């Protein structure tokens, strides 16, 4: 496996940054109105997102990042 | 298939009702029993009339001018009362119950001003030292009263409990303080009527509610009329005399506790009540002494005023 060290450092830095962000001020329940809007969900339209992801995985050499598992196809 | 099951009961000196949608009555009854038990639990803890209640224990300490450590729930209620006191510029005051001793609404007699002045010496939330969890009464002979908070808090808790137990549609009605659990199963709102302050068994407005709560207050609950003038039970803690200005106020809010406090504060503000409701961001409506109704901008025409042939009153929307 020839993964370079600096790539790992980059990944570790991103994750560390995100863990530090964990110390945010909590927001009260009545302030969650904007976050609760359907288009503020991480995936507002999962069916279409899945189709697009399938197209990308078939035509590109990268996969992963978005979710776990999902099954394959003999995409040519 | 959801069906509506109603459970009337009496608590906190008022007629109460739980309306729950459930497939079977047995399931609804099980949950209603849990909710009613919580309401009665709060009544037992904060009723003025029960010598073994938490409130009575506090008031015994207060009578002697001592210090008491309160539990978490009571502490949060005192915090809430403190916030109401600040937001109402001192008009909302849980120590003002003492003034009741001067006002006997069955006697049809006005009290002696000197009696009121003596009582005022022992009234005032700012005379009390509240540093959670210690409640200290430097001035002996004071008295606390959770009227205006207790019933509304119970309504919110009962609704939350029903939701947790799986009821998604229904409402909790504790003596006119209503908290919605969820709209009717077809999505349609509950049509809540607001009692007319002068005409018994009539409503002055109707409001559709999908969620949230509504509380109302008025000068019709306990009062006496002397010399053509109405004296109601809502007493200004600074003067000791009943407030004047509005006949009735109803406020819609997410929580019944907030709606109820806003109602009480608006009534206590008298003629300045409507302006206070507007500026504080509440959705509410009121009727003033001339019978004219108004609502805050925030209410957004949700209310349907009900007008009938008036006799001396004109009901028109602002």
């Amino acid at each position, binding site marked *: 496996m020839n*993964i370079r060290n600096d790539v790992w450092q980059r*990944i570790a830095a*991103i*994750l560390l940054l*995100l*863990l530090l962000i*964990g110390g*945010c*001020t909590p*927001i*009260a*329940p*009545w302030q*969650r*109105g*904007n*976050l609760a*809007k359907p*288009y*503020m969900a*991480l995936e507002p*339209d999962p*069916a*279409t997102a899945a*189709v697009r992801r399938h*197209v990308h995985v078939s*035509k*590109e*050499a*990268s*996969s*992963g*990042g978005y*979710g*776990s*598992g*999902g*099954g*394959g*196809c003999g995409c*040519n | 298939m959801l069906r509506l099951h109603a459970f009337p009961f009496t608590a906190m000196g008022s007629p109460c009702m739980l309306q729950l949608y459930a497939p079977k009555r047995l399931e609804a009854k099980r949950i209603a029993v849990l909710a009613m038990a*919580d309401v009665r639990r709060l009544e037992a803890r904060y009723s003025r009339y029960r010598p073994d209640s938490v409130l009575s224990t506090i008031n015994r300490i207060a009578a002697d001018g001592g210090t008491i450590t309160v539990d*978490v*729930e009571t502490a*949060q209620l005192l915090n*809430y009362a403190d916030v109401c006191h600040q937001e109402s510029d001192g008009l909302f005051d849980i120590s003002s119950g003492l003034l009741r001793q001067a006002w006997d609404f069955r006697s049809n007699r006005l009290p002696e001003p000197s009696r009121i002045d003596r009582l005022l010496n022992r009234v005032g939330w700012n005379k009390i030292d509240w540093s959670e969890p210690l409640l200290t009464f430097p001035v002996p002979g004071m008295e606390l009263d959770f009227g205006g908070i207790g019933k509304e*808090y119970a309504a*919110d808790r009962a609704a*939350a*409990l029903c*939701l*947790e137990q799986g009821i*998604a549609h229904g409402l909790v009605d504790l003596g006119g303080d209503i908290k919605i659990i969820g709209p009717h199963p077809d999505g349609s709102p509950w049509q809540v009527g607001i009692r007319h302050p002068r005409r018994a068994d009539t409503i002055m407005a109707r409001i559709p509610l999908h969620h949230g709560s509504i509380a109302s207050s008025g000068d019709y609950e306990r009062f006496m009329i002397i010399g053509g003038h109405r004296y109601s039970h809502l007493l200004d803690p600074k003067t000791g005399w009943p407030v004047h200005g509005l006949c009735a106020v109803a406020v819609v809010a997410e*929580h019944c*506790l*907030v709606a109820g*406090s806003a109602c009480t504060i608006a009534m206590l503000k008298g003629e300045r009540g409507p302006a206070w409701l507007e500026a*504080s*961001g*509440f959705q509410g409506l009121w009727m003033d002494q001339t019978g004219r109704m108004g609502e805050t901008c925030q209410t957004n025409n949700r209310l349907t005023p009900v007008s009938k042939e008036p006799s001396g009153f004109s009901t028109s929307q602002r």
Partner: protein
Amino acid sequence: MAATKKNSCLHTLTAAALALPGMSPNKATAGVPAEAIATGFLYSHYDECCNRMVVDVFEAFGIAPLGESAELSASWVTDRIAGASPVLNIPFGRTDAVAGASGGAAKVSVTESARSLPLSIAARPVQVMSSATIRDTRNALDLSGQYYFDDVTIGLAGGASDEKDYRSYFSNLNLRWETDKKMTTLALGAGFTHDTITPTTRDIKKSQTAVDSLLGITQILDKNSLLQANMTYQYSSGFLSNPYKKVFISGGGDQQPGLKSAGDPDIFWENRPNERHQWAVLARYLRYFSDWDAALHLDYRFHIDDWGIRSHTVEMQWHQPLGNDWMLVPRLRYYSQSEAKFYSPYFGAPRGNGFYSSDYRLSGFGALSGGLTFTKTFFDRLKLHTGVEYSVHKAGLKLDGATQPGFADFSFFLITAGIDYRF
């Protein structure tokens, strides 16, 4: 003064009220099962340029709550695939070698980008497309269930996909845990996939297996924004080559173990390693803009594997309500990948470790796509949506410049239309 007082009393009282015990029901906000049965249908049309592939996808799905704490969902997909696909690259000077290739007459298409690298004409790679038109139908069934505890949600999913030459089974387990006053959600996932390949033009039967894992964190930053970061790892083993793709190895007379002749002297079936480790890191930022009542979704994904492929994906979406229950979502995506270590358009000489592929998917290229989706909602129950996306794959769009001429460049349209109904 009135402006600052406005809304503050209501909020002050509400804040104080919420501090009281039992005021809100004890239900994790992010982990609540669907309240009602919902179903949907989605049609997608994938259309590659240049008479290549066309795919029509029909999907039906549904989700239903099960009791108070669980939900079940299912989806059925049917793909109809038709068209041609690149099979081999050969040097332009050797196109005659294709005429007698096994499988009948092959189509030779010469596709070059305007900025081809300077190569002698004879050496320029040329794509050879599959003979005849591929026609295949794929059917897939996915099932999943989720169970919601107070702060934790557990999900189990599985499915199977079947087509003439390919069968795939997968299953995965995932866990979501809400912590820290519901500001942070941790996600853990593990999955397993097993595929069986029986190509129509060869007498082989192969299989591959993959296991993947996910670690993720979603953090609410403030009342208008949140950030998600995921890290995934996948290990695949088995037959990872594409059984239809061939490679041209000039002077490939020395047969290497694992390399099988595809009929002609210099043409062999491709041979990829039988193991692959892939890592991906995704960062996703969502922000709500109250002035527009709109949301921005910004994604960046970095992917790296031990085949030498590194890729960057940047995607941006803007979700804009238009009033009257209309919604418009424009999106933009840029993708860039480096070529696999054992990739070459064709091979001038045999390679040491015996791995070869000329599959355009493993080449270095960049892709730019833009799309637009419209949605209209009726009575809060029925949603109709349609969208179009156009994507361009070009060697020249790769970050740090092209590593091959644009002979393999292509583009496609993706059109979607769907209905969602919530009971």
